[in-house]
Protein backbone atom coordinates (compact mmCIF):
# COMPACT_ATOMS: atom_id res chain seq x y z
CA UNK A 1 0.00 0.00 0.00
CA UNK A 2 2.95 2.24 -0.77
CA UNK A 3 1.33 5.18 -2.55
CA UNK A 4 -2.29 4.56 -1.57
CA UNK A 5 -3.65 7.23 0.76
CA UNK A 6 -4.16 6.08 4.36
CA UNK A 7 -7.75 7.28 4.24
CA UNK A 8 -9.78 7.48 1.06
CA UNK A 9 -13.57 7.83 0.89
CA UNK A 10 -15.76 8.25 -2.17
CA UNK A 11 -19.37 9.29 -2.31
CA UNK A 12 -20.26 8.32 1.26
CA UNK A 13 -23.96 8.57 1.91
CA UNK A 14 -25.86 7.75 5.05
CA UNK A 15 -29.38 8.64 6.18
CA UNK A 16 -31.16 8.06 9.47
CA UNK A 17 -34.85 7.96 8.56
CA UNK A 18 -35.35 11.19 6.70
CA UNK A 19 -32.26 12.87 8.15
CA UNK A 20 -29.57 12.87 5.47
CA UNK A 21 -26.46 12.87 7.64
CA UNK A 22 -24.06 12.41 4.69
CA UNK A 23 -24.96 13.23 1.09
CA UNK A 24 -21.97 12.03 -0.88
CA UNK A 25 -18.77 12.83 0.98
CA UNK A 26 -15.26 12.40 -0.48
CA UNK A 27 -12.25 12.51 1.84
CA UNK A 28 -8.57 11.79 1.22
CA UNK A 29 -5.66 11.77 3.66
CA UNK A 30 -2.21 10.77 2.37
CA UNK A 31 -0.19 8.55 4.69
CA UNK A 32 1.40 10.56 7.49
CA UNK A 33 -0.82 13.61 7.04
CA UNK A 34 -3.49 15.20 9.20
CA UNK A 35 -6.91 15.73 7.68
CA UNK A 36 -9.13 18.14 9.54
CA UNK A 37 -12.87 17.72 9.08
CA UNK A 38 -14.33 21.04 10.07
CA UNK A 39 -18.01 21.66 10.48
CA UNK A 40 -20.71 22.86 12.83
CA UNK A 41 -22.77 20.63 15.10
CA UNK A 42 -24.92 18.23 13.08
CA UNK A 43 -22.81 18.58 9.92
CA UNK A 44 -22.18 14.82 9.71
CA UNK A 45 -18.65 14.62 11.18
CA UNK A 46 -19.36 11.84 13.66
CA UNK A 47 -21.30 9.86 11.06
CA UNK A 48 -18.29 10.02 8.73
CA UNK A 49 -15.91 8.92 11.49
CA UNK A 50 -18.20 6.06 12.48
CA UNK A 51 -18.31 4.78 8.91
CA UNK A 52 -14.52 5.00 8.56
CA UNK A 53 -14.01 3.15 11.86
CA UNK A 54 -16.37 0.28 10.86
CA UNK A 55 -19.06 1.22 13.40
CA UNK A 56 -21.65 2.14 10.82
CA UNK A 57 -22.42 0.92 7.30
CA UNK A 58 -22.70 3.55 4.58
CA UNK A 59 -25.89 3.51 2.46
CA UNK A 60 -23.70 4.19 -0.57
CA UNK A 61 -20.09 4.96 -1.39
CA UNK A 62 -16.82 3.23 -0.59
CA UNK A 63 -14.01 3.87 1.81
CA UNK A 64 -10.57 2.38 2.31
CA UNK A 65 -8.48 2.91 5.42
CA UNK A 66 -4.89 1.64 5.76
CA UNK A 67 -5.39 -0.18 2.46
CA UNK A 68 -8.48 -2.07 3.69
CA UNK A 69 -12.12 -1.73 2.74
CA UNK A 70 -14.13 -0.48 5.72
CA UNK A 71 -17.04 -2.84 5.11
CA UNK A 72 -15.46 -5.92 3.50
CA UNK A 73 -12.29 -6.03 5.63
CA UNK A 74 -13.82 -4.54 8.79
CA UNK A 75 -12.50 -7.08 11.28
CA UNK A 76 -8.93 -6.89 9.96
CA UNK A 77 -9.07 -3.11 9.80
CA UNK A 78 -10.02 -2.81 13.47
CA UNK A 79 -6.55 -3.89 14.57
CA UNK A 80 -4.98 -1.05 12.53
CA UNK A 81 -7.00 1.92 13.71
CA UNK A 82 -7.39 3.82 16.94
CA UNK A 83 -10.54 5.77 17.77
CA UNK A 84 -11.07 8.48 20.32
CA UNK A 85 -14.77 9.23 20.01
CA UNK A 86 -16.67 12.40 20.67
CA UNK A 87 -17.21 11.48 24.31
CA UNK A 88 -14.25 10.26 26.36
CA UNK A 89 -15.07 6.55 26.34
CA UNK A 90 -13.49 5.38 29.57
CA UNK A 91 -14.94 3.06 32.18
CA UNK A 92 -15.46 5.32 35.18
CA UNK A 93 -15.35 2.48 37.65
CA UNK A 94 -11.99 1.20 36.49
CA UNK A 95 -8.67 2.85 37.23
CA UNK A 96 -6.71 4.48 34.43
CA UNK A 97 -4.33 1.55 34.36
CA UNK A 98 -7.16 -1.02 34.33
CA UNK A 99 -8.85 0.83 31.47
CA UNK A 100 -5.72 0.75 29.32
CA UNK A 101 -4.85 -2.85 30.18
CA UNK A 102 -8.40 -3.91 29.31
CA UNK A 103 -8.17 -2.26 25.90
CA UNK A 104 -4.79 -3.97 25.38
CA UNK A 105 -6.33 -7.35 26.13
CA UNK A 106 -9.17 -6.64 23.70
CA UNK A 107 -6.59 -5.80 21.00
CA UNK A 108 -5.35 -9.30 21.86
CA UNK A 109 -2.08 -8.41 23.53
CA UNK A 110 -1.00 -10.83 26.24
CA UNK A 111 -1.79 -9.92 29.88
CA UNK A 112 1.81 -8.90 30.56
CA UNK A 113 2.15 -6.96 27.29
CA UNK A 114 -1.10 -5.17 28.13
CA UNK A 115 0.15 -4.15 31.56
CA UNK A 116 3.52 -2.97 30.22
CA UNK A 117 1.85 -0.95 27.49
CA UNK A 118 -0.60 0.54 30.00
CA UNK A 119 2.29 1.75 32.16
CA UNK A 120 4.13 3.20 29.16
CA UNK A 121 1.04 5.12 28.09
CA UNK A 122 0.32 6.40 31.60
CA UNK A 123 3.86 7.79 31.67
CA UNK A 124 3.53 9.29 28.20
CA UNK A 125 0.21 10.97 28.98
CA UNK A 126 1.25 12.30 32.36
CA UNK A 127 -1.16 10.05 34.23
CA UNK A 128 1.25 7.99 36.33
CA UNK A 129 0.06 9.43 39.64
CA UNK A 130 -3.58 9.04 38.67
CA UNK A 131 -3.11 5.59 37.12
CA UNK A 132 -4.30 3.78 40.25
CA UNK A 133 -7.39 5.95 40.77
CA UNK A 134 -10.79 5.18 39.27
CA UNK A 135 -11.51 7.32 36.22
CA UNK A 136 -14.60 8.91 37.78
CA UNK A 137 -12.20 11.02 39.86
CA UNK A 138 -10.46 12.39 36.73
CA UNK A 139 -10.85 15.92 35.37
CA UNK A 140 -12.18 16.43 31.85
CA UNK A 141 -8.67 16.88 30.49
CA UNK A 142 -7.40 13.73 32.21
CA UNK A 143 -10.28 11.70 30.80
CA UNK A 144 -9.55 12.92 27.30
CA UNK A 145 -5.90 11.99 27.73
CA UNK A 146 -6.84 8.55 29.00
CA UNK A 147 -9.24 8.15 26.08
CA UNK A 148 -6.56 9.17 23.60
CA UNK A 149 -4.08 6.82 25.28
CA UNK A 150 -6.61 3.99 24.88
CA UNK A 151 -6.77 4.74 21.16
CA UNK A 152 -2.97 4.38 20.95
CA UNK A 153 -2.53 1.07 22.75
CA UNK A 154 -1.34 -0.79 19.65
CA UNK A 155 0.32 2.24 17.99
CA UNK A 156 -2.20 2.17 15.14
CA UNK A 157 -1.02 3.67 11.83
CA UNK A 158 -4.31 5.53 11.42
CA UNK A 159 -5.93 7.49 14.21
CA UNK A 160 -9.46 8.96 14.30
CA UNK A 161 -10.19 11.77 16.72
CA UNK A 162 -13.76 13.02 16.92
CA UNK A 163 -13.81 16.49 18.46
CA UNK A 164 -10.91 15.65 20.78
CA UNK A 165 -10.89 18.96 22.62
CA UNK A 166 -14.58 19.87 22.85
CA UNK A 167 -15.36 20.94 26.39
CA UNK A 168 -11.75 21.34 27.48
CA UNK A 169 -10.24 24.43 29.06
CA UNK A 170 -7.56 26.22 26.99
CA UNK A 171 -4.65 24.72 28.90
CA UNK A 172 -5.81 21.11 28.55
CA UNK A 173 -6.59 21.87 24.93
CA UNK A 174 -3.04 23.01 24.27
CA UNK A 175 -1.61 19.99 26.05
CA UNK A 176 -3.76 17.66 23.96
CA UNK A 177 -2.75 19.44 20.75
CA UNK A 178 0.88 18.86 21.61
CA UNK A 179 0.24 15.16 22.23
CA UNK A 180 -1.50 14.85 18.88
CA UNK A 181 1.38 16.67 17.16
CA UNK A 182 3.83 14.18 18.68
CA UNK A 183 1.86 11.29 17.15
CA UNK A 184 1.89 13.02 13.80
CA UNK A 185 5.65 13.56 13.96
CA UNK A 186 6.00 9.81 14.47
CA UNK A 187 4.22 9.22 11.17
CA UNK A 188 0.66 8.44 12.29
CA UNK A 189 -2.05 9.47 9.85
CA UNK A 190 -4.77 11.41 11.68
CA UNK A 191 -8.32 12.30 10.81
CA UNK A 192 -9.56 14.89 13.22
CA UNK A 193 -13.00 16.44 13.36
CA UNK A 194 -13.56 19.76 15.00
CA UNK A 195 -15.92 22.68 15.31
CA UNK A 196 -13.02 24.95 16.11
CA UNK A 197 -11.36 26.81 13.28
CA UNK A 198 -8.17 27.46 15.21
CA UNK A 199 -7.85 23.76 15.96
CA UNK A 200 -8.05 22.78 12.29
CA UNK A 201 -5.72 25.66 11.44
CA UNK A 202 -3.14 24.50 13.94
CA UNK A 203 -3.21 20.72 13.46
CA UNK A 204 -4.40 19.91 9.96
CA UNK A 205 -2.38 19.73 6.73
CA UNK A 206 -5.58 19.80 4.74
CA UNK A 207 -9.07 20.75 5.80
CA UNK A 208 -12.42 19.51 4.51
CA UNK A 209 -15.20 21.88 5.47
CA UNK A 210 -18.42 19.95 5.85
CA UNK A 211 -21.91 21.34 6.27
CA UNK A 212 -25.30 19.57 6.05
CA UNK A 213 -23.62 16.32 5.04
CA UNK A 214 -21.60 17.76 2.16
CA UNK A 215 -17.99 18.83 1.72
CA UNK A 216 -18.36 22.46 0.75
CA UNK A 217 -14.64 23.25 0.52
CA UNK A 218 -11.38 21.35 0.67
CA UNK A 219 -7.78 22.49 0.77
CA UNK A 220 -5.01 23.74 3.00
CA UNK A 221 -5.88 26.31 5.57
CA UNK A 222 -4.19 28.91 3.31
CA UNK A 223 -6.29 27.80 0.33
CA UNK A 224 -9.43 28.31 2.34
CA UNK A 225 -8.32 31.69 3.55
CA UNK A 226 -7.50 32.68 -0.02
CA UNK A 227 -11.10 32.00 -0.99
CA UNK A 228 -12.19 34.90 1.19
CA UNK A 229 -9.67 37.12 -0.55
CA UNK A 230 -6.23 38.18 0.61
CA UNK A 231 -5.17 40.40 3.47
CA UNK A 232 -6.81 43.75 4.13
CA UNK A 233 -5.03 46.93 5.03
CA UNK A 234 -6.86 48.88 7.73
CA UNK A 235 -5.93 52.56 8.17
CA UNK A 236 -7.17 55.01 10.81
CA UNK A 237 -6.70 58.72 9.92
CA UNK A 238 -5.96 61.51 12.38
CA UNK A 239 -8.05 63.92 10.29
CA UNK A 240 -11.18 62.65 8.47
CA UNK A 241 -10.98 65.49 5.90
CA UNK A 242 -7.86 63.82 4.47
CA UNK A 243 -9.89 60.71 3.52
CA UNK A 244 -9.97 61.53 -0.20
CA UNK A 245 -6.20 62.14 -0.30
CA UNK A 246 -5.63 58.85 1.50
CA UNK A 247 -7.93 56.97 -0.88
CA UNK A 248 -5.99 58.32 -3.87
CA UNK A 249 -2.64 57.44 -2.28
CA UNK A 250 -3.65 53.86 -1.47
CA UNK A 251 -5.56 53.14 -4.69
CA UNK A 252 -2.58 51.56 -6.50
CA UNK A 253 -2.14 49.01 -3.67
CA UNK A 254 -5.65 47.59 -3.99
CA UNK A 255 -6.40 44.39 -5.84
CA UNK A 256 -7.46 44.85 -9.42
CA UNK A 257 -11.09 45.93 -9.59
CA UNK A 258 -11.38 46.35 -5.83
CA UNK A 259 -12.36 49.59 -4.17
CA UNK A 260 -10.85 51.37 -1.21
CA UNK A 261 -13.58 51.49 1.41
CA UNK A 262 -13.93 54.72 3.37
CA UNK A 263 -15.90 55.05 6.60
CA UNK A 264 -15.31 58.39 8.32
CA UNK A 265 -11.69 58.36 9.43
CA UNK A 266 -11.19 54.67 8.61
CA UNK A 267 -10.10 53.09 5.34
CA UNK A 268 -10.10 49.45 4.36
CA UNK A 269 -8.06 48.25 1.37
CA UNK A 270 -8.09 44.71 -0.12
CA UNK A 271 -4.32 44.38 -0.57
CA UNK A 272 -2.68 43.09 -3.72
CA UNK A 273 -0.32 40.32 -2.62
CA UNK A 274 2.68 42.08 -4.32
CA UNK A 275 1.77 45.56 -3.08
CA UNK A 276 4.44 45.75 -0.39
CA UNK A 277 2.18 45.66 2.66
CA UNK A 278 2.34 48.09 5.55
CA UNK A 279 5.71 49.56 4.51
CA UNK A 280 4.49 50.61 1.08
CA UNK A 281 1.27 51.98 2.53
CA UNK A 282 2.99 54.09 5.15
CA UNK A 283 5.45 55.49 2.58
CA UNK A 284 2.66 56.43 0.16
CA UNK A 285 0.56 58.09 2.86
CA UNK A 286 3.60 59.97 4.10
CA UNK A 287 4.42 61.20 0.58
CA UNK A 288 0.83 62.46 0.24
CA UNK A 289 1.08 64.26 3.60
CA UNK A 290 -1.68 62.20 5.25
CA UNK A 291 -1.39 61.80 9.03
CA UNK A 292 -2.40 58.37 10.32
CA UNK A 293 -2.99 57.12 13.86
CA UNK A 294 -2.93 53.39 13.02
CA UNK A 295 -2.05 51.07 10.12
CA UNK A 296 -2.57 47.31 10.33
CA UNK A 297 -2.77 44.37 7.97
CA UNK A 298 -5.49 41.89 8.87
CA UNK A 299 -5.05 38.37 7.53
CA UNK A 300 -8.29 36.51 6.95
CA UNK A 301 -9.06 33.86 9.56
CA UNK A 302 -10.83 30.57 9.05
CA UNK A 303 -13.80 32.27 10.66
CA UNK A 304 -13.95 34.57 7.67
CA UNK A 305 -13.64 31.56 5.39
CA UNK A 306 -16.49 29.83 7.14
CA UNK A 307 -18.71 32.85 6.85
CA UNK A 308 -18.01 33.10 3.14
CA UNK A 309 -18.53 29.40 2.51
CA UNK A 310 -21.66 28.76 4.55
CA UNK A 311 -23.21 32.19 4.66
CA UNK A 312 -23.24 32.20 8.43
CA UNK A 313 -20.62 32.70 11.12
CA UNK A 314 -19.08 29.66 12.77
CA UNK A 315 -20.24 30.90 16.19
CA UNK A 316 -23.90 30.69 15.16
CA UNK A 317 -23.37 27.17 13.98
CA UNK A 318 -21.81 26.10 17.25
CA UNK A 319 -24.35 27.83 19.46
CA UNK A 320 -26.29 24.66 20.11
CA UNK A 321 -23.19 22.50 20.50
CA UNK A 322 -23.24 20.28 23.56
CA UNK A 323 -20.24 20.50 25.82
CA UNK A 324 -19.53 17.06 27.25
CA UNK A 325 -17.46 16.63 30.41
Amino acid at each position, binding site marked *: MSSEPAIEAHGLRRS*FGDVHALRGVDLVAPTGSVLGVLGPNGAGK*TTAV*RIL*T*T*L*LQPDAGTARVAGLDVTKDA*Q*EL*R*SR*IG*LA*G*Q*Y*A*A*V*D*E*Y*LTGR*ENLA*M*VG*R*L*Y*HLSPSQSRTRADELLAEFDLVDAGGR*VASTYSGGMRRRLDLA*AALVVRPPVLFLDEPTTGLDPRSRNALWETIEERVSEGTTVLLTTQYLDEADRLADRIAVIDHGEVIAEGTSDDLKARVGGSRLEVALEDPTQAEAARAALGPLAEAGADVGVDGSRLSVPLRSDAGGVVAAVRRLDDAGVAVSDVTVRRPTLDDAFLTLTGRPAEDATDDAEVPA
Partner: protein
Amino acid sequence: MSSLRWTISDTGVLALRQLRRIPRQPDLLIGYTIQPVMFVLLFRYVFGGAIQTPGFDNYADFLMPGIIVQSIAFGGFVTALAISDDMKKGLIDRFRSLPMSRIAVLSGRAFADLALNALQLAVLIAVGLLVGFSFATDILRVLLGIVLLLGLGFAFSWVFCLIGLSAGSAETSNAIGFTVIFPLTFASGAFVPPSTMPDGLRQFAEANPFTTLVDATRHLFLGAPANSDVWVSVLWIVGITVVAAFLSLRRYRSLTG
Protein backbone atom coordinates in the same frame (compact mmCIF):
# COMPACT_ATOMS: atom_id res chain seq x y z
CA MET B 1 -5.26 -18.59 17.70
CA SER B 2 -8.75 -19.79 16.91
CA SER B 3 -11.63 -17.36 17.04
CA LEU B 4 -13.37 -19.48 19.68
CA ARG B 5 -10.41 -19.05 21.98
CA TRP B 6 -10.48 -15.29 21.44
CA THR B 7 -14.21 -15.23 22.12
CA ILE B 8 -13.59 -16.96 25.44
CA SER B 9 -10.65 -14.69 26.25
CA ASP B 10 -12.58 -11.50 25.38
CA THR B 11 -15.60 -12.71 27.37
CA GLY B 12 -13.32 -13.26 30.35
CA VAL B 13 -11.78 -9.79 30.03
CA LEU B 14 -15.20 -8.15 29.99
CA ALA B 15 -16.65 -10.34 32.73
CA LEU B 16 -13.66 -9.33 34.86
CA ARG B 17 -14.41 -5.70 34.04
CA GLN B 18 -17.92 -6.11 35.50
CA LEU B 19 -16.75 -8.00 38.56
CA ARG B 20 -14.11 -5.36 39.32
CA ARG B 21 -16.78 -2.69 39.26
CA ILE B 22 -19.00 -4.38 41.87
CA PRO B 23 -17.15 -3.43 45.07
CA ARG B 24 -16.78 0.11 43.65
CA GLN B 25 -20.54 0.50 43.28
CA PRO B 26 -21.92 -0.18 46.76
CA ASP B 27 -25.38 1.04 45.71
CA LEU B 28 -25.51 -1.76 43.16
CA LEU B 29 -24.54 -4.35 45.73
CA ILE B 30 -27.28 -3.07 48.02
CA GLY B 31 -29.81 -3.40 45.21
CA TYR B 32 -28.69 -6.98 44.75
CA THR B 33 -28.93 -8.06 48.36
CA ILE B 34 -30.83 -5.69 50.66
CA GLN B 35 -33.74 -5.13 48.30
CA PRO B 36 -34.71 -8.83 47.93
CA VAL B 37 -34.30 -9.24 51.68
CA MET B 38 -36.75 -6.37 52.24
CA PHE B 39 -39.17 -8.20 49.95
CA VAL B 40 -38.82 -11.36 51.99
CA LEU B 41 -39.57 -9.50 55.22
CA LEU B 42 -42.47 -7.57 53.67
CA PHE B 43 -44.23 -10.63 52.28
CA ARG B 44 -43.39 -12.97 55.12
CA TYR B 45 -44.52 -10.67 57.95
CA VAL B 46 -46.77 -7.95 56.49
CA PHE B 47 -48.84 -9.84 53.88
CA GLY B 48 -48.02 -13.42 54.86
CA GLY B 49 -50.59 -13.72 57.64
CA ALA B 50 -53.43 -13.04 55.22
CA ILE B 51 -52.31 -15.42 52.46
CA GLN B 52 -53.55 -19.03 52.50
CA THR B 53 -51.26 -21.59 50.90
CA PRO B 54 -52.88 -25.00 51.21
CA GLY B 55 -50.42 -27.86 50.85
CA PHE B 56 -47.47 -25.93 52.30
CA ASP B 57 -46.26 -26.16 55.92
CA ASN B 58 -46.04 -22.37 56.21
CA TYR B 59 -46.01 -19.24 54.05
CA ALA B 60 -42.20 -18.96 54.20
CA ASP B 61 -41.93 -22.30 52.36
CA PHE B 62 -44.38 -21.12 49.70
CA LEU B 63 -42.85 -17.65 49.43
CA MET B 64 -39.10 -18.30 49.19
CA PRO B 65 -39.06 -20.07 45.79
CA GLY B 66 -41.25 -17.25 44.44
CA ILE B 67 -39.06 -14.46 45.75
CA ILE B 68 -35.90 -16.22 44.64
CA VAL B 69 -37.20 -16.67 41.08
CA GLN B 70 -38.31 -13.04 40.96
CA SER B 71 -35.00 -11.69 42.32
CA ILE B 72 -32.85 -13.86 40.08
CA ALA B 73 -34.84 -13.03 36.97
CA PHE B 74 -34.91 -9.35 37.79
CA GLY B 75 -31.29 -9.23 39.00
CA GLY B 76 -30.04 -9.00 35.41
CA PHE B 77 -31.85 -5.70 35.25
CA VAL B 78 -28.69 -3.78 36.16
CA THR B 79 -27.23 -5.23 32.97
CA ALA B 80 -29.77 -3.28 30.94
CA LEU B 81 -28.90 -0.09 32.81
CA ALA B 82 -25.16 -0.68 32.45
CA ILE B 83 -25.39 -1.41 28.72
CA SER B 84 -27.50 1.67 28.08
CA ASP B 85 -24.96 3.64 30.05
CA ASP B 86 -22.04 2.14 28.08
CA MET B 87 -23.77 3.11 24.85
CA LYS B 88 -24.35 6.66 26.00
CA LYS B 89 -20.78 7.09 27.19
CA GLY B 90 -19.32 5.78 23.92
CA LEU B 91 -17.81 2.63 25.46
CA ILE B 92 -19.83 0.37 23.18
CA ASP B 93 -18.46 2.34 20.20
CA ARG B 94 -14.96 1.81 21.50
CA PHE B 95 -15.54 -1.94 21.95
CA ARG B 96 -17.06 -2.20 18.50
CA SER B 97 -14.03 -0.45 16.99
CA LEU B 98 -11.65 -3.04 18.52
CA PRO B 99 -10.64 -6.31 16.83
CA MET B 100 -12.41 -8.25 19.57
CA SER B 101 -15.15 -10.87 19.39
CA ARG B 102 -18.56 -9.34 18.71
CA ILE B 103 -20.48 -11.30 21.29
CA ALA B 104 -18.00 -10.78 24.15
CA VAL B 105 -19.46 -7.48 25.37
CA LEU B 106 -22.75 -9.29 25.96
CA SER B 107 -21.50 -12.71 27.04
CA GLY B 108 -19.07 -10.99 29.42
CA ARG B 109 -22.05 -9.36 31.10
CA ALA B 110 -24.03 -12.58 31.23
CA PHE B 111 -21.20 -14.47 32.92
CA ALA B 112 -20.50 -11.67 35.38
CA ASP B 113 -24.22 -11.67 36.21
CA LEU B 114 -23.94 -15.37 36.93
CA ALA B 115 -21.49 -14.62 39.74
CA LEU B 116 -23.75 -11.88 41.10
CA ASN B 117 -26.76 -14.18 40.92
CA ALA B 118 -24.91 -16.84 42.90
CA LEU B 119 -24.20 -14.26 45.59
CA GLN B 120 -27.80 -13.11 45.61
CA LEU B 121 -29.04 -16.68 45.82
CA ALA B 122 -26.80 -17.39 48.83
CA VAL B 123 -28.09 -14.29 50.65
CA LEU B 124 -31.73 -15.14 49.91
CA ILE B 125 -31.44 -18.77 50.98
CA ALA B 126 -29.74 -17.70 54.21
CA VAL B 127 -32.47 -15.16 54.97
CA GLY B 128 -35.14 -17.67 54.01
CA LEU B 129 -33.78 -20.20 56.48
CA LEU B 130 -33.88 -17.49 59.18
CA VAL B 131 -37.56 -16.64 58.56
CA GLY B 132 -38.79 -20.23 58.67
CA PHE B 133 -38.09 -21.74 55.25
CA SER B 134 -36.65 -25.26 55.19
CA PHE B 135 -35.60 -27.59 52.38
CA ALA B 136 -37.65 -30.79 52.32
CA THR B 137 -35.88 -32.80 49.61
CA ASP B 138 -32.45 -34.38 49.10
CA ILE B 139 -29.24 -32.54 48.37
CA LEU B 140 -29.26 -33.62 44.73
CA ARG B 141 -32.60 -31.99 44.04
CA VAL B 142 -31.63 -28.85 45.96
CA LEU B 143 -28.50 -28.58 43.81
CA LEU B 144 -30.57 -29.14 40.68
CA GLY B 145 -32.83 -26.34 41.84
CA ILE B 146 -29.83 -24.03 42.27
CA VAL B 147 -28.57 -24.87 38.76
CA LEU B 148 -32.04 -24.19 37.37
CA LEU B 149 -32.15 -20.78 39.10
CA LEU B 150 -28.70 -19.79 37.88
CA GLY B 151 -29.75 -20.84 34.38
CA LEU B 152 -32.78 -18.60 34.74
CA GLY B 153 -30.56 -15.69 35.75
CA PHE B 154 -28.29 -16.33 32.77
CA ALA B 155 -31.26 -16.41 30.39
CA PHE B 156 -32.61 -13.14 31.74
CA SER B 157 -29.21 -11.45 31.47
CA TRP B 158 -29.61 -11.82 27.72
CA VAL B 159 -33.13 -10.45 27.85
CA PHE B 160 -31.78 -7.43 29.69
CA CYS B 161 -28.86 -7.12 27.24
CA LEU B 162 -31.46 -6.83 24.51
CA ILE B 163 -33.45 -4.24 26.47
CA GLY B 164 -30.31 -2.22 27.22
CA LEU B 165 -29.20 -2.27 23.58
CA SER B 166 -32.65 -1.34 22.32
CA ALA B 167 -33.54 1.29 24.89
CA GLY B 168 -30.76 3.75 24.21
CA SER B 169 -30.97 5.30 27.67
CA ALA B 170 -30.91 4.03 31.23
CA GLU B 171 -34.26 5.76 31.87
CA THR B 172 -35.98 3.87 29.05
CA SER B 173 -34.42 0.60 30.23
CA ASN B 174 -35.76 1.37 33.67
CA ALA B 175 -39.23 2.01 32.30
CA ILE B 176 -39.28 -1.24 30.30
CA GLY B 177 -38.03 -3.25 33.27
CA PHE B 178 -40.55 -1.87 35.73
CA THR B 179 -43.61 -1.75 33.48
CA VAL B 180 -43.18 -5.05 31.64
CA ILE B 181 -41.03 -7.56 33.46
CA PHE B 182 -41.66 -6.65 37.09
CA PRO B 183 -45.47 -6.90 36.86
CA LEU B 184 -45.10 -10.17 34.96
CA THR B 185 -43.43 -11.70 38.01
CA PHE B 186 -46.36 -10.63 40.21
CA ALA B 187 -49.08 -11.95 37.91
CA SER B 188 -47.82 -15.46 38.63
CA GLY B 189 -47.88 -18.05 41.36
CA ALA B 190 -44.80 -16.52 42.98
CA PHE B 191 -46.48 -14.85 45.97
CA VAL B 192 -50.04 -16.20 46.14
CA PRO B 193 -51.63 -19.33 44.63
CA PRO B 194 -53.26 -18.49 41.25
CA SER B 195 -56.37 -20.36 42.42
CA THR B 196 -57.20 -17.35 44.63
CA MET B 197 -57.10 -14.91 41.68
CA PRO B 198 -60.12 -13.65 39.69
CA ASP B 199 -60.93 -15.25 36.32
CA GLY B 200 -58.74 -13.95 33.53
CA LEU B 201 -55.84 -13.14 35.77
CA ARG B 202 -55.93 -16.71 37.08
CA GLN B 203 -55.60 -18.23 33.61
CA PHE B 204 -52.85 -15.73 32.81
CA ALA B 205 -50.95 -16.59 35.99
CA GLU B 206 -51.27 -20.31 35.35
CA ALA B 207 -49.86 -19.94 31.86
CA ASN B 208 -47.14 -17.49 32.97
CA PRO B 209 -43.68 -19.09 32.61
CA PHE B 210 -42.75 -17.54 35.95
CA THR B 211 -45.37 -19.76 37.57
CA THR B 212 -43.81 -22.80 35.88
CA LEU B 213 -40.36 -21.79 37.10
CA VAL B 214 -41.57 -21.14 40.65
CA ASP B 215 -43.43 -24.46 40.75
CA ALA B 216 -40.34 -26.27 39.48
CA THR B 217 -38.27 -24.65 42.24
CA ARG B 218 -40.91 -25.60 44.83
CA HIS B 219 -40.73 -29.14 43.57
CA LEU B 220 -36.94 -29.31 43.75
CA PHE B 221 -36.65 -27.54 47.12
CA LEU B 222 -39.81 -28.77 48.88
CA GLY B 223 -41.01 -31.85 47.03
CA ALA B 224 -44.24 -30.13 45.95
CA PRO B 225 -46.06 -31.86 43.07
CA ALA B 226 -44.61 -30.67 39.78
CA ASN B 227 -45.91 -32.65 36.79
CA SER B 228 -43.78 -31.45 33.89
CA ASP B 229 -42.75 -28.12 35.46
CA VAL B 230 -39.03 -28.89 35.73
CA TRP B 231 -38.64 -29.93 32.11
CA VAL B 232 -40.81 -27.14 30.82
CA SER B 233 -38.69 -24.72 32.88
CA VAL B 234 -35.52 -26.05 31.29
CA LEU B 235 -37.10 -25.56 27.88
CA TRP B 236 -38.12 -22.00 28.78
CA ILE B 237 -34.60 -21.20 29.99
CA VAL B 238 -32.89 -22.63 26.92
CA GLY B 239 -35.46 -21.03 24.62
CA ILE B 240 -35.18 -17.59 26.23
CA THR B 241 -31.38 -17.77 26.20
CA VAL B 242 -31.16 -18.76 22.54
CA VAL B 243 -33.71 -16.24 21.29
CA ALA B 244 -32.53 -13.33 23.45
CA ALA B 245 -28.84 -14.01 22.71
CA PHE B 246 -29.53 -14.20 18.99
CA LEU B 247 -31.54 -10.98 18.98
CA SER B 248 -29.03 -9.16 21.21
CA LEU B 249 -26.11 -10.12 19.01
CA ARG B 250 -27.97 -9.07 15.89
CA ARG B 251 -28.85 -5.78 17.50
CA TYR B 252 -25.28 -5.25 18.71
CA ARG B 253 -23.87 -5.86 15.24
CA SER B 254 -26.15 -3.36 13.61
CA LEU B 255 -26.13 -0.61 16.25
CA THR B 256 -26.28 2.82 14.68
CA GLY B 257 -25.59 4.77 17.83
